[in-house]
């Protein structure tokens, strides 16, 4: 517990995988749990509709107050959040990896980190310690692996599914928490305005061919997440070499064409 540390936890509306009903989002709840475990000064923020009942489910975890930046669905929340975070100047901002509803692009923490000029640590499972303006965080990697990362405050982190389970949401505190509406300048999401939305088509599923011969192999196949292979560390190389390496990668991934 670091009582003097200011944390902001960003909350979104989740969507239950079986019933499709709005509920607290899994990763966001875990992020809030992590924030509440790390510090007693947690500000929970939602950008969207202040009348959203799902916010009460987060409040039931023991929040006295939830701040809501009152925004319509067509707004770009990153701008408003940036202004809000500038005012608050927190030490750590926690989000989920991606929203369960809406665009669900997973871009929000990255866009915020770009706007604020802070570091962004994706998929953390735990904050281990915070000392002298530096935090040690555990990043979740596929198949239960963890990587210890040191990062300067302030930073943004997205919280992985493997972070500690969120505490139970209790009805009493949930119904008594105040929802503080903050009116804010609305920035229209230009990109979104230009899009045409249509219902998703169910894509045909590729048949699985069982290649695994042993139970251990099948278990591996069932639990594996995509795992990056190879890679070279270019952190300490001169900038031109780093640029070249990125350029080459983009070409091999056919993101850009060789001029």
């Amino acid at each position: 517990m670091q009582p003097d540390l200011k944390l902001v936890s960003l909350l979104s509306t989740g969507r239950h995988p079986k019933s499709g009903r709005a509920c607290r989002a899994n990763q966001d709840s875990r992020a809030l749990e992590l924030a509440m475990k790390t510090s007693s000064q947690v500000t929970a923020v939602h950008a969207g509709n202040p009348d959203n009942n799902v916010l009460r489910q987060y409040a039931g975890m023991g929040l006295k107050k939830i701040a809501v930046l009152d925004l319509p669905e067509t707004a770009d929340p990153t701008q408003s959040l940036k202004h809000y975070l500038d005012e608050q100047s927190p030490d750590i901002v926690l989000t989920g990896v991606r929203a369960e509803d809406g665009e669900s692009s997973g871009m929000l923490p990255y866009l915020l980190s770009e706007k604020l000029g802070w570091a962004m640590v994706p998929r953390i499972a735990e904050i281990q310690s915070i000392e002298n303006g530096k935090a040690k965080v555990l990043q979740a990697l596929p198949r239960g692996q963890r990587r210890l990362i040191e990062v300067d405050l302030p930073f943004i982190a997205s919280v992985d599914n493997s972070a500690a389970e969120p505490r139970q949401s209790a009805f009493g505190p949930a119904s008594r928490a105040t929802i503080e509406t903050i009116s804010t300048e609305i920035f229209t999401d230009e990109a979104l305005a230009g899009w045409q939305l249509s219902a998703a088509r169910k894509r045909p599923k590729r048949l699985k061919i069982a290649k695994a011969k042993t139970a251990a192999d099948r278990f591996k196949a069932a639990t594996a997440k995509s795992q990056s292979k190879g890679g070279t560390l270019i952190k300490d190389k001169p900038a031109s070499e780093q640029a070249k390496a990125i350029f080459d990668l983009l070409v091999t991934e056919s993101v850009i064409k060789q001029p």
Partner: protein
Amino acid sequence: MALEWLHPVLIAAVLVLAAIGAVRRVNLWRQGQKEPVDIVGGLLAMPGRYMKDLHDVVERDKYMSKTHVATGGGFVLSMVLIVLVHGLGVDSKLLGWALLASLAMMFTGAVFVYLRRRNPPSRLSKGPWMRLPKSLLSFAGAFFILTLPLAGVLPEGTGGWLLTLVLTVLVIYGLSEMLLGMTWGGPMKHAFAGALHLAFHRRPERFGGGRSTGLKPIDLGQPVLGVQKPSDFKWNQLLGFDACVQCGRCEAVCPAFAAGQPLNPKKLIQDMVVGFAGGTDSHYAGSPYPGIDIGSASGGPHQPITEGLVTPDTLWSCTTCRACVEECPMMIEHVDAIVDMRRFMTLEKGSTPGKGAEVLENLIATDNPNGFAPASRSNWAADQNLNLMSEVKEAEVLFWVSDGAFDMRSQRIIRAFVKLLKAANVDVAILGNEEQDSGDLARRLGDDATFQQLARNNIATLSQYRFKKIVTTDPHAYHCLKNEYGDFGGNYEVFHHTTYLNELVQQDRLKFDQFQGGKVTYHDPCYLGRYNGEYEAPRELLRSLGIEIAEMERSGFRSRCCGGGGGAPVTDIPGEQRIADMRMEDVIATDAELVAVGCQQCTAMLEGVVEPRPEVKDISEILIDVLIEEVH
């Protein structure tokens, strides 16, 4: 006799002190929350409630009921006469003889109390209760000798100052126990608090043969939900706790106690008394909560109960089987108290143990405890050609399927029942995917908010359709629909499937062959039996197949829980044995090859016992095996 002035003064002084104690005690109860009661009506009804309802329960132990009538009746009568004869000095031989008779009766009773206390069973509390027979004997004996001269048996002034001294000591000892103990907190407290508890009981419907088992709803707008501190109980609940005689009949029947889980209903009630009176449990002289030593608990009227007085595990061990309530001669409501405290744990602290939190979240998000897609609720009925209420709008019978719809084992029960309904040509329909969990589990886990939500949703759905009766195979849903939806405006005629099937059999709408099999026993589900008083219909159905039921030692209103109620399988508090295993031992003791059940939870719990063991079947499954289907 010397010192003639002494005894009237003594009696008057003790009465005054007892009155002061009574006021003090009443003020302790008044720390509780307001609850309106009919004061005059209650007091007038009290003697009847004592003679009939309370005595009926005591009567289950013939030895004790006779002993209590002699001792208690003798004492009340003697006390009135003592005040007249020795206190006010009314000089009447007749009264003297009457007093001698009542004291003799009390003395005889006290002798039997003494005999019982020579080698008391473990369920009885010891400590101050062990001195009670001696106090009773001194009281009755001393006043008997004092009264002899007044009745003219002995000449006035018999005995010297030595006898007077001895008698005076005994009178002081007896009077203190009987009158001061009554209001200042001795064993006789049960008479004072018990009488008032009968008068101001929170469930007056229970008296005169009635039944009141539905939990009381809470106002969700209150500043604190559920019971955190002893003073959060209603005042008459506190009064009820004080009425406990520590006879331990609850302890003897509690499945959690027998399984070695940290619950003992008697100790819990005594801890509640410690809570509102303040202090520690070090004076408690009965069996502890299994695994928790006596002496470490302390509390006060405004101290949180789970911080020092009772561990949360104690509260979560209860299966809400109501065996303790059924057995309690003082008609104390243990289950109400436990659920009240659970409500605080769940609704305010968010600390439902085990899988409780997950189950409640599922109930909120998917209307069923296991988080299945609500749209798949009626998948089991895909091949059943059943009418949906949303299509037919009207049916004679609405079949409430309950969450067994998602469970493959329970589906066998449900399908069997549907087959029987079809064989009897019943006009039946189901709600299909519109049905939601009845809210039973949420409510027993203390989440009254979710229960109320589910109840309101279901009532809104039911109000769209016309039907004569609801029939269900799940006693838990049966109980909610029948006894707990009324508070939210849902009043229905609800039947358990065994009751309804029995009706069909009586009407000759179903015909069966004789049952060809071995010995059969029947397990009474708590929520069908104790909660709703249905013991006969399932037995009649079995008998109609030619089955002679090999009854278990604990059956009917004394049936032992399977361990599946009250969310106990979800919270899963560790003990030394499993309750279901103990129940299966009861079954095995009858040599039965098959145990008939009327509840899918009981089926699941009993089938969870490792084999070899008797087969477990719902009554509807037994019935379809011998159903004579008419060919059209």
